[in-house]
Structures are given as C-alpha cells and as structure tokens.
C-alpha cells in the first residue's frame, strides 16, 4: 500500500496521492497536501472550493467537474485556475481528501 509522506503514515493514498479513505482527512492533512502540490497557503477562497468539492462528493458520491464548480461554487473558472494551477478539480479533490475525480468519458 502506498502511503504519502504527510504527517500520518497510516493515511492510505493512491499512486497519485489521492486519499483512498475520505474519513481519514483533516485540515492539517489538507494543508500538507496543498504544500506538496505547490499551493503554499490555503486562503479562504481555496477552502471554499475544497469544502464545496468535499461536501458534494460525500453527498452524491461524485466530485464536480471544473465547469460545474465554476457554475455552482461561486468561484469563476478563471479564478479556480489561479487558486489551483493546472487542474482545479483534481487538485481541490486531492486537497479535500476525496478520490481522484473519474473525469469524463
């Protein structure tokens, strides 16, 4: 089983660093994952997106896409890319401690 270098060695993650068990997540873990992935500090705007992703996943079993985030989270797609460079949906999911979004078919 792969584990991440973050504080708790028993946190199970997939090969790309996504938590396999969302219940193992907490805010300290979120901050470490963010730092490991080039987001030095999580601002209120980051947290808004991360919490939105996580709550949506826990409620529906699926994480929203970038487009759905842009429509529903209150943060525009442009800003999402500023907050989470490269892939906002993937990175916010990783920081929010939920599995990698399945993406699209």
């Amino acid at each position, binding site marked *: 089983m792969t584990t991440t270098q973050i504080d708790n060695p028993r946190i199970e993650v997939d090969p790309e660093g996504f938590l396999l068990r969302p219940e193992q997540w907490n805010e300290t873990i979120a901050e470490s994952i963010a730092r490991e992935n080039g987001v030095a500090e999580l601002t209120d705007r980051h947290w808004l997106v991360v919490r939105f992703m996580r709550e949506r996943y826990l409620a529906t079993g699926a994480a*929203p896409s970038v*487009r759905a985030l842009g429509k529903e989270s209150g943060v525009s797609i442009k800003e999402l*890319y500023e907050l989470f460079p*490269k892939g906002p949906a993937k990175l916010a999911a990783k920081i929010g401690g939920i599995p990698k979004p399945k993406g699209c*078919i």
Partner: protein
Amino acid sequence: MTRKRIVILGGGTGGTMAANRLRRRFDPDEAEIHVVDRDDRHVYQPGLLFVPFGLARVDEIVRPRRRQLRRDIAFHEAEVQSVAIERDEVELDDGTILPYDVLVVATGVRLLPEETEGLTGPGWNERVFTFYSPEGAELLERALAWFDGGRLVVNLVDMPIKCPVAPLEFVFLADWHLRERGIRKRTELTYVTPLDAAFTKPVASQHLAGLLAEKEIELVTEFNAGEVDGSARTLGSYDGRTLEFDLLVTVPLHGGAPYVERSPGLGDALGFVPTDTHTLRTAAKDNVFALGDATDLPISKAGSVTHFEAEILTENVVRHLAGKELQAGYDGHANCFIETGFHKALLIDFNYETEPLPGHFPTAFGLPLLRESRLNHLGKLAFQWAYWHALLPGREIPGIGPTMPRSGKQLLTA
C-alpha cells in the same frame, strides 16, 4: 386497465427508438405514445463528420422526424417549456399541457459555443468553425475548400461531448484530405484536448496516439481552452498557454436542453439528467426515465450507447407500468467505428467496466478491434442504412445485443 399515456421528449435517436419499441409492446388501446420535438429534422449525426470534406451532403443525412415514427404515435412540433415532476405534466411553449404516466427524457444535448470567451466573436464561421451542427459543417466545407495551408487546429473545449472520437476522426480525415490536395506539407495539423491523452481510455489512447504520430499530427494535452481570439487567431488556455491558428475547428461545450434548467428537480448544473446506470430510471421520480445524450451516465454520448439503452429502457417502462421490479440490465455497452482516412477505420467496443481492447467483434471471427482496416470503414458506411432501416424502427440486429460481448476480446487479466 385504463389507457396509459407515455410522453417522450425528443424525437432524435433515443426518442424515436424508444417510441417505436414501446409502440410494439403496447396496443394503441393500452397506451398512447406522444413524441415532442421542436422541429421536424432528424439528423443522422455520424454523417456530419463527412460534410466538411465533401464526402456527404446535409440533405443526404436529414430526414423528417415524423416519418421515422410508427403509426399511432402522436408527434408534437413544439418547444418544451418545462416539466412539472410533482404533477406528472409537461408544458409546451404553445401552452399545451401533456399529462403522463411515464415520461422519457431523450432531448440530447445542445451546443454552447457562447460559453467560451470570444468563441462566437470575430472570426466565428470565418476562421473558427464547428462541424457539430449541420450549418457549421456546411460552412466549414467552404472554408476548407479555400484553405491553402497554414496552421489547422482541432480543439475540443471540454468533456462531455457527443461522440468523443469524432474530433479525432476529423483530424485523421483532415490529414487525408490535405494530402490528396497536395497541401499537407505546408499545413501544421494540431490536435488539442483537455484530456491527459488522445482519448478517454488508456489502451485505445495509446493506439490513437500512435496513429496521430504516424500521420504527423501534433498532440497537445491537458489544454483547457478558456478564450478564443478570432482576430489575433489565438486559442488560450486557462493556465496561460496560447496556440496560434489560421483555421480553428472546435467542438464547443455541451449542456442539456434548456427546459431541463426550467424544470426543478430534473437536471444537474450542466442540464444533464441524473440517471441510474443500470435501470435508466432518473433520480427525479420513479416514473421518469432517460436515455441517450441527455443523461449524466459515465459512458460515451453516442448513438450506439443510445441504441443499447433503448432496449433496456423499453423493458423497464413496461415493467414500471405493470408494477414490476425494474431490470438492472444496462452495462454501459458502447461501440463505435473510428474513421482514420484512406478508406480505413478502427472499431472499438467497451462498457462501464471494460475499456476498448484489441480482438474481434462480436466474436473471434468478426471485425477487427482497435486495428485499422478497410472492412471497418465499409462497416461505418453501411451503418447509415442500418440506422434508418433497422435501428430507428427498433428492429434487432442479429448477433448484437445490449450487453458487451466478451468472446473475441483480448481481456487483460487483473
């Protein structure tokens, strides 16, 4: 039993197949069937790919919707205003109210080019085109005929899109077209995708990336297009990359039909309808079913998917009306031909669990899978006839059922 009323929204691939199959299952005194669509033009959508290259004409791929429906199916030419899920009623924009016992949502998707900044601004339909609509495909044909080399960029803005292989097929056919005209050497051909590979599934992606390389088509991945500037001829990504083009062929964002947003409880943020993966009943209510591109199912938006779904959906509408348990029969089966130019095509076949793999379809003695062949190209051409004459009327195709065949595939052992 009192006469039931089935209302089907959408007279395209899914709505027509569902209507015709349901008509065969119920006598007219058992159930009335109504189909609603805003126009009477049924487009054979796979044909749009060929229009820009002069290999098909729009009038050859469009037929009246009404004529594809069996007798004793009522056709309403009107826009849907909204669905009142609580009251089991559909309201049309001419004020007509259609109460129903069962509703089938089959309104597909709509194109949303205006959701990408600048896409429909200067240069739209002059040097920026989409072949995803009949009008766009025709305009692109004229532009391609005048094209004399330069940078041709093919971009899909974001998933989900109808027929995820179509933009790849377009770039393969463009390569062929430009070689035939002797201007391939002075054309830079680039395929730009938001995905991290050529296609959504790993094994097929490798094969397709190989084909792109062979044909000297540049592949740009993880490019989330955020802005088009038709005057400066640039395509920009959200993460700050810029690509220059002389001709841009785009597949715009897709969303559900407009009435979905006007019907509380029916759709998600993008207007797709949350649907059970195996029974095709929607999350909206137990008497609302959906099939085809309109759903949020995690499988390709494609006619073959819709065809396989139609069989399960019909069975489940019958069961629901009889008060029986639904059949969780749909496995996500999809298959499609991928035109690769030079009279050849690939075939892929897959479902929710199994990605497209090499082998043969439907059995070891069938068509080659994931390999270019002339036979597959002929299969793709023959398909148009089968679409109008077998699939829409709801006839079975011998040897091809709704679930994915495993024999003939080189299945990977886990």
